[in-house]
């Protein structure tokens, strides 16, 4: 379907606004007008716009400043500046600031007609690029969900079933099981696929930042909020909002989100003007939410709201059958990335991979293969190429000295934390100085 393009005309002169709007309406565009920056921002906020035609010279906030504000909110917006006299410097400044072009009024009808068509062509190209990029990501994303085991097939079936509905989905599973991939698969197979999937990792942000990220803010909503800004809720309009690590959000944010999900309305921080949004919610967590509810740490009403359709992602140890498949997949992936030949895994290495408990799940397996691809010699991945903690489980023998076990365990933890001394110290319950001493004592190497 060909939707009507929407154009906002901002000019302080009534006759200009009026005649331009009428001309554009006859051309078949949806047009609204604003007489100053303030009215323009209001109208702009209330809808979606393809093009803004903006008078450079206006009383109050001028066109250049307004252009900056608009681009702050929507960097892809096409702004065409209108200048009354050939004030080249100002127009050039506008172009530098990201304006698409400028026209001096009065315009030649043909020139204006062409300029607008050119702008719209560029816009549809940009949109097409975004769509193509999303498509590539989607295909890649889907390819990453590897699994032949009955558990995994069940997961993909569930994702397929729920994709077409608008139901809220809660994806549960341990860290590293690939919850975001499932969210992407659901989005990619839904009617919302032409809009964005907007992910936000709730666990990575403190409460106040999370709220700003989600809701956006008005100018002056807090110190440093110089411009208003779109939040993820607005960006997800039409698409899917993916709330990762939902189990970590505060009671207050839970309540705020509950309201948005139920009313499909929200206000930016620092505003009391509700905005309509329409998105699908997919959440993910590795937390036992039922227990959190029982402990009073998670709102019951919010729990029921997000737990409409649950998908459990099995940990890797419950889908051993998929390990060789996944290993081969990651070998190919890293071989391509490193420009190497894909290596075969020796039967001993495969055996070791299959018997490991994989507390870090698919992500841990992926890291193990990446590392093996770097260190493997002679075109084969052998047990010695796998991370130390894998082999150490096998190598611990009843006859080992305590020192030998300690040495291997510390090496394993260091490897797992990427040689982050503080984190290793925390895991091992030692202080940093002791870790340094042990590294020296056992001559451990990264």
């Amino acid at each position: 379907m060909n939707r009507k393009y929407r154009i906002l005309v901002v000019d302080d002169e009534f006759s200009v606004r009026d005649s331009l709007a009428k001309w554009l309406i006859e051309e078949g565009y949806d047009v609204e007008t604003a007489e100053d920056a303030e009215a323009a921002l209001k109208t702009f906020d209330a809808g979606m716009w393809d093009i803004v035609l903006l008078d450079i010279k206006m009383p109050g906030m001028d066109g250049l400043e307004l252009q900056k504000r608009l681009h702050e909110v929507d960097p892809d917006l096409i702004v065409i500046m209108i200048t009354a006299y050939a004030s080249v410097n100002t127009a050039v400044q506008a172009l530098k600031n990201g304006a698409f072009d400028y026209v001096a009024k009065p315009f030649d009808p043909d020139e204006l007609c062409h300029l607008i068509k050119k702008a719209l062509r560029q816009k549809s190209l940009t949109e097409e690029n975004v769509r193509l990029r999303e498509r590539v990501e989607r295909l890649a994303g889907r390819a990453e969900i590897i699994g032949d085991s009955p558990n995994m097939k069940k997961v993909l079936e569930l994702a397929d079933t729920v994709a077409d509905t608008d139901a809220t989905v809660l994806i549960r599973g341990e860290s590293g099981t690939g919850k975001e991939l499932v969210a992407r698969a659901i989005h990619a197979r839904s009617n919302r696929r032409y809009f964005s999937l907007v992910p936000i990792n709730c666990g990575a942000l403190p409460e106040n930042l999370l709220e700003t990220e989600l809701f956006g803010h008005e100018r002056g909503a807090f110190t440093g909020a110089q411009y208003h800004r779109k939040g993820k809720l607005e960006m997800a309009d039409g698409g899917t909002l993916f709330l990762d690590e939902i189990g970590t959000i505060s009671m207050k944010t839970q309540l705020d989100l509950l309201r948005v999900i139920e009313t499909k309305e929200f206000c930016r921080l620092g505003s009391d003007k509700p905005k309509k949004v329409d998105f699908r919610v997919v959440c993910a967590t590795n937390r036992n939410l039922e227990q959190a509810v029982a402990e009073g740490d998670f709102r019951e009403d919010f729990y029921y709201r997000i737990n409409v359709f649950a998908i459990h992602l099995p940990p890797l140890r419950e889908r051993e059958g998929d390990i060789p498949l996944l290993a081969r997949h990651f070998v190919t992936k890293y071989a391509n990335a490193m420009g190497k030949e894909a290596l075969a895994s020796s039967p001993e290495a495969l055996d070791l991979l299959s018997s490991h408990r994989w507390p870090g799940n698919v992500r841990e397996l992926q890291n193990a293969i990446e590392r093996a691809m770097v260190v493997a010699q002679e075109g084969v991945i052998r047990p010695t190429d796998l991370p130390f903690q894998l082999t150490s489980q096998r190598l611990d023998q009843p006859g080992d000295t305590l020192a030998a076990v300690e040495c291997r365990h510390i090496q394993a933890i260091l490897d797992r934390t990427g040689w982050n001394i503080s984190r290793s110290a925390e895991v091992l319950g030692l202080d940093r100085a002791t870790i340094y001493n042990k590294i020296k004592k056992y001559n451990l190497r990264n």
Partner: protein
Amino acid sequence: MRYLEIVSFVKDPEYDWPGLCQRLGQTFRMTVQLTWPTLDLEFAYNPARGQYLSTAMLSKLLEIRNPAATKSLGITDLDLFIPILTYVFGEAQLGGTVAVVSGHRLRPSFYGLPDDRDLRQERLIKEAVHELGHTFGLLHCPNQLCVLASSTYAENIDNKGTEFCAHCQGLINDALANPQTWPRP
């Protein structure tokens, strides 16, 4: 009885008036009445631009038109403009009752070419049908051959036909069949 009123501000008999009336009558299936009011158009003159404001002409037409007419079309030879554009061939009250077209930029001599009465007449018919189409609420048509395609320069007008495309004709037929949807004269 519905009829189309043509209000001519053109003094000299340069156009084939009976021909124009016949074409417009056929296209819009109405009788046509041609009037020649004596009226000074200087109220619409803008000295800074050296042109006439077409929007002001529309307002004047609304004032002087015969209220019994279904639509009123003004025809002038003055150079028309709207504030935002360097010139227009005409202007209409979208979904309204009045429209105006100018022959000023339709004559080939305006572009330094030898005059061609037939060509000028044909352009005038196209622009008259086009602007009257707007008074029935129709917007520009993406079909480049349709008389409602937008024309931004004279050769552009020559590229399109004098008729509505099937889609626009359908809209016109609907409008003609449902006079209750028309704006009150």
